[in-house]
């Protein structure tokens, strides 16, 4: 039986990846940060008491800023694969906490690579490593669309830290013969997305407007264009990368780009509303430096991994709306059936207006 270690297991991607790996018969170990109150709601449905026979999901306290603990967890778990999804993952927030972002995202990846390097040299057990790269690394894009060979131009502390982690991963692959892969994932969304990410902020607002609990939706730049896919598809690409004969880097994207306006059109139109009546501008949501256009070229992932998305942009928006409508106890105004198999939205509630 294979064992996988996942950092960032409480996040959107961590929860989908854990489900996928458990389905494939893996024993899954997750690293969670200490917190005073619990934030494991995305994985509670797959968690069982570890003392029970047959338990396949285990959680360990650790932190990407604490390298000695990562080493101890690695020694204890002895994983075949490590998926590094842990991060301070919000781009706008990275401008407010740049040092912490660099420490968790950049140095955190280096600490893991260092731990694997020593563990593998000492035990000869191969540990395959997946690094969660980001399309934000392309930033001020140098070519359209962006592929594995497009130069980076990061435009946020988050993206700078991700670029550092990306090159360190490649260096450790080349210097120490680690099976280490970078996935350069374009935006990927789902009903489990955090509520301050723009897509989820919109779909949740639509549901709350229908429920009568929200009147306005405050937004920043509506012209930003992104290549949006479905997170559940994207974690499959992560796994596929570690099943190849050779480690490599892959862009994972849909190959389409859409503006935030288009997202608003579909989201509000789906429930017969006109977004212009609800959306207001607030410059607090603008980034100091904006990324205007992201569109990925997933040709390599398609040919080498046999990967492709299962959901169109329109389906993605609608499935997120469906989940958020259900989560607030509403029914669809057109009486429509869900676009895809029903998936529950994770809601941690907006915390005051003061947050990002």
């Amino acid at each position, binding site marked *: 039986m294979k064992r996988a270690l996942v950092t960032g297991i409480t996040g959107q991607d961590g929860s989908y990846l854990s489900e996928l790996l458990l389905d494939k018969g893996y024993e899954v170990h997750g690293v969670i940060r*200490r917190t005073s109150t619990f934030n494991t709601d995305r994985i509670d449905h797959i968690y069982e008491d570890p003392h029970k026979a047959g338990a396949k999901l*285990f*959680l360990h306290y650790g*932190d990407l*800023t604490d390298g000695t*603990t990562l080493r101890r967890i690695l020694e204890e778990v002895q994983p075949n694969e490590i998926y590094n999804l842990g991060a301070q993952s*919000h781009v706008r927030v990275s401008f407010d*906490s740049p040092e912490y972002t660099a420490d968790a995202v950049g140095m955190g990846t280096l600490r893991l690579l260092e731990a694997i390097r020593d563990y593998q040299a000492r035990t000869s057990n191969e540990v395959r490593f997946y690094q969660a790269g980001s399309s934000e690394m392309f930033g001020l894009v140098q070519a359209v669309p962006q592929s594995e060979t497009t130069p980076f131009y990061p435009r946020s502390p988050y993206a700078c830290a991700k670029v550092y982690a990306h090159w360190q991963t490649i260096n450790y692959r080349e210097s120490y013969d680690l099976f280490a892969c970078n996935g350069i994932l374009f935006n990927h969304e789902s009903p489990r997305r955090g509520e301050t990410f723009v897509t989820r902020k919109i779909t949740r607002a639509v549901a709350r407007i229908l429920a009568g609990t929200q009147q306005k939706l405050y937004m920043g730049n509506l012209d930003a264009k992104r290549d949006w896919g479905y997170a559940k598809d994207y974690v499959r690409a992560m796994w596929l990368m570690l099943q190849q004969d050779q480690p490599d880097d892959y862009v994972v994207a849909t190959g389409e780009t859409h503006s935030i306006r288009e997202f608003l059109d579909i989201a509000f139109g789906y429930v017969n509303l006109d977004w212009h009546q609800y959306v207001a501008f607030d410059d607090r949501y603008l980034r100091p430096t904006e990324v205007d256009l992201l569109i990925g070229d997933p040709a390599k992932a398609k040919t080498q991994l046999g990967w492709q998305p299962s959901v169109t942009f329109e389906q993605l928006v609608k499935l997120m709306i469906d989940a958020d409508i259900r989560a607030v106890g509403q029914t669809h105004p057109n009486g429509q059936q869900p676009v895809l198999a029903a998936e529950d939205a994770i809601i941690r509630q907006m915390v005051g207006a003061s947050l990002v």
Partner: protein
Amino acid sequence: MKTALICGISGQDGAYLAQLLLEKGYTVCGTSRDAQMSSFSSLKRLGIYNQVKLESMALTDFRSVLQVLTKVDPDEIYNLAGQSSVGLSFELPVETLESIATGTLNLLEAIRFLAKPIKLYNAGSSECFGNTNGEPADEQTPFRPRSPYGVAKATAFWEVANYREAYGIFAASGILFNHESPLRPQRFVTQKIIATAQRIAAGSREILRLGNTAIQRDWGWAPEYVEAMYLMLQQPQPDDYVIATGQAFALQDFVAQAFASLDLDWQAHVVIDQSLYRPTEIAHSQGNPAKAKRQLGWKAQFAMPDVVRHMVAAGNKDAGATDSFKFS
């Protein structure tokens, strides 16, 4: 109206302190490392979730601290943030040191940088003393910490004292002995005991596994300990205070009290598990709160037997929750 900033508002003390300060008419702002990811279940349980403003703040990131202080413009800061479990500090030594020592230093530096009359309360800990064999520890007792947590708290204590003396910052450390409540998570032994005893009383046939039950602690009731924090910042001069009940009990006494209150005989349900012993353990911890009584007019109303009674009465809504993981 005064504004208070509570760093680490999602924890036990943060929630009770927020409640107290709201009652006193403060505008209360609280921080957590990631205010999106935190569930703030303690604030919700006290029914004050909608009355506090919440901000994300990484105490290990100076800019993050400075930015929140600038935005909130507090009169008083209560630093309750940081890795707070002694047991877990043996597993997360680096994160424990950074979140406590670097975190406190960043707060002091930010106050120094802003040059505003901001008062700071810093959460010290009886763990700084280590064993207090013989005399109950007071403010003059030398530190002899015996865990990564205790070492980090001792560091933070001296940072506070140094910034007070060097830059005239109104900064006070409360050296709080153990204080418990129903808001404790189950990775703390007191809540683990209460929650397990309640499940057994409800029919569970599980066994309660404990480490060293001979250890002695000075256990108080958290809701009244946060009053002492508040009082320290209302004094004319900043100073450090030991906050304790003055009475020590063995962990075994706590267990017996908890089980007896549910009409159970603890000896039928408890097993001592050597693997739960800590690498270094404090045998006896007892405080002398005379200075707090004299200068703050503060005195603990409740000792261990009352604490157990309160915790059992509150029930444990989280019993069986997945919060002990491998550190049960």
